[in-house]
């Protein structure tokens, strides 16, 4: 059913959109504008004089091996988080889809992690993974594995991947479950009649029919992992040890706040902004194509 309301005059419509416009302006356009401006300036060591330098911050950035390292690290981190959280979520969704009864409780339990603030989630993981007090950390050491993610870079990366992926599982789970439930039951039954079972049926029928959901989630998860895990990394490893878990977003913070290099930090955030815009554009294009057919 189509509902359409025609407003007379302009005051009322403007009043309706004004709050959203104000929010967008003060929390997105204004800081984004400032970041773009700041990305083209450079301050002296004492923060007294500001000088306009054009694109120099950007060219410096892409010739800085530390920055390129951080890009590489972010790609590894994001891909791992996306793959891990989606794989776990899909597995859980398949079980939930099968298990009709008790699904309510199951679903509620699985949604919790999503509602937890990153810092709190990270504390939970600290309590699990801590070499001395965490029971996973403790267990690993008891097994003779030299576990200390505060000293070992690879282990630190593993820890932030685990914690970040865990937080995203609920979100993915809901979408996968909805996707699974929207596959017509008769199609699955037709495959059963054709003799397809288990993994084979999943691989050739179920998974291909989940493709739109999967694609959507890949983009969402990459965006999440790359841009929305600051809180988790901050609480768990602070980007360390060394720079082992310093992703692009974390580096923006380190360079801007800790190192007081506002120009470079702004340039980095502008690069990230462009990346988000690009990913979102890809997604919108794909989704637009989906609804057409």
């Amino acid at each position: 059913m189509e509902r359409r309301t025609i407003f007379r005059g302009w005051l009322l419509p403007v009043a309706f959109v004004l709050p959203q416009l104000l929010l967008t302006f003060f929390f997105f356009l204004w800081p984004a504008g400032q970041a773009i401006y700041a990305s083209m300036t450079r301050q002296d060591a004492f923060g007294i004089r500001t000088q306009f330098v054009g694109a120099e911050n950007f060219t410096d950035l892409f010739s800085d091996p530390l920055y390129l390292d951080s890009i590489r690290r972010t790609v590894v981190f994001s891909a791992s988080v996306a793959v891990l959280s989606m794989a776990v979520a899909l597995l859980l969704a398949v079980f939930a889809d099968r298990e009709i009864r008790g699904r309510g409780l199951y679903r509620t339990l699985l949604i919790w992690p999503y509602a937890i603030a990153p810092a709190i989630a990270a504390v939970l993981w600290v309590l699990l993974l801590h070499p001395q007090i965490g029971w996973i950390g403790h267990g690993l050491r008891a097994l003779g594995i030299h576990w200390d993610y505060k000293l070992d870079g690879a282990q630190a990366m593993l820890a932030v991947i685990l914690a970040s992926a865990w937080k995203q599982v609920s979100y993915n789970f809901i979408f996968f479950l909805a996707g699974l439930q929207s596959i017509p039951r008769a199609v699955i039954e037709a495959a059963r009649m054709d003799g397809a079972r288990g993994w084979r049926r999943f691989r050739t029928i179920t998974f291909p029919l989940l493709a739109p959901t999967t694609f959507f989630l890949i983009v969402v998860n990459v965006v999440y992992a790359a841009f929305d895990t600051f809180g988790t990394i901050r609480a768990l490893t602070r980007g360390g040890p060394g720079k082992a878990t310093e992703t692009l977003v974390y580096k923006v913070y380190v360079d801007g706040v800790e190192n007081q290099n506002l120009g470079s930090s702004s340039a980095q955030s502008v690069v990230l902004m462009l990346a988000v815009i690009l990913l979102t554009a890809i997604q919108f294009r794909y989704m637009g194509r989906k609804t057409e057919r």
Partner: protein
Amino acid sequence: MMASLKLEGLRKSFGATKVLHGIDLELASGEMLVIVGASGCGKSTLLRLVAGLEEPTAGRIVLDGRDVANLDPAERDIAMVFQNYALYPHMSVFDNMAYGLKIRRLSTAEIRKRVEEAADMLGLRPLLDRKPRQLSGGQRQRVAMGRAIVRHPKLFLFDEPLSNLDAKLRVTMRAEIKRLQRRMGVTSLYVTHDQVEAMTLGDRLLVLHQGVPVQLATPMEVFERPADIYVAGFIGAPAMNLLPARLAAGGTAAQLDAGPLVPFADGRRAGADGMKLTVGIRPEHVALVAEGGLALQVDLVEPLGSETVLIGRLPDGEMLSIKLAGAAPPEETVHVAIPPPNLHVFDAATGLRLEPRG
């Protein structure tokens, strides 16, 4: 490839809801048996039990001498055509048909041969590369048929395969299904709520009423000697007239509540005079008479071209319909008679057909 099917005491309940109350059935090799009944009577459930998509609450399903009731569908070698076709939306027509064969690890050459053979039978050759969404309803239906045919299964199951097609296509496909089934000689169970489909397709019919099998016989037998009031009213269009009456003249006639005494042409019925009956007469058997008989006040005239259906009211208020060859008479009141040889007699209390004694 010929196989027989036997169902023994097959029951199904969903929780406390009893859906099927004990089905016994035997199909000869190559036979096409149609299960017909109103919507919700348990037809699909019965088919799904045979397919292995549901587990029976009790009973045996014996296919080709082997009890398959506890086997996975994959182990039963049965193909099914679904009501809404259930094609694989992401696969081409070719792959839709080839899927079951790939799973059975047939050689690529054999798969190609079988699919092309089926495609030729069904006129799908030019469409093999299309996706289901690029096909019309009738074409999808054919693909669904093709997917079953290529399997060369022991048994075909059809769950109202024509109900989503328009009337004209339905008639064409009906003939085609019959032709294919004959040609391939595969034992088939066909489910429908459409009695015309049931009459034209089945070697035999099973009429199902609220999960209870009420009659199993050839289409003509079901039509000529319906086992109870339900079958009498369900098979045949327009539906058989059912009129209240009482047994009279020492069991040799029915005294209609509407007036006339109609003698039984085929013999005496058991029971005391005055026992409540329901007598049935098909609309095409009601005779128009010049005068006498029953006065019928005509409420509605439905011209069907070569035939006309009159629906009217008897003096005591009972509805009666008549099917006439040709056009309707112009009068508002016509006189009708009930020819004794065409009378069906049922016990009003049990609804069961009363046969002549001895």
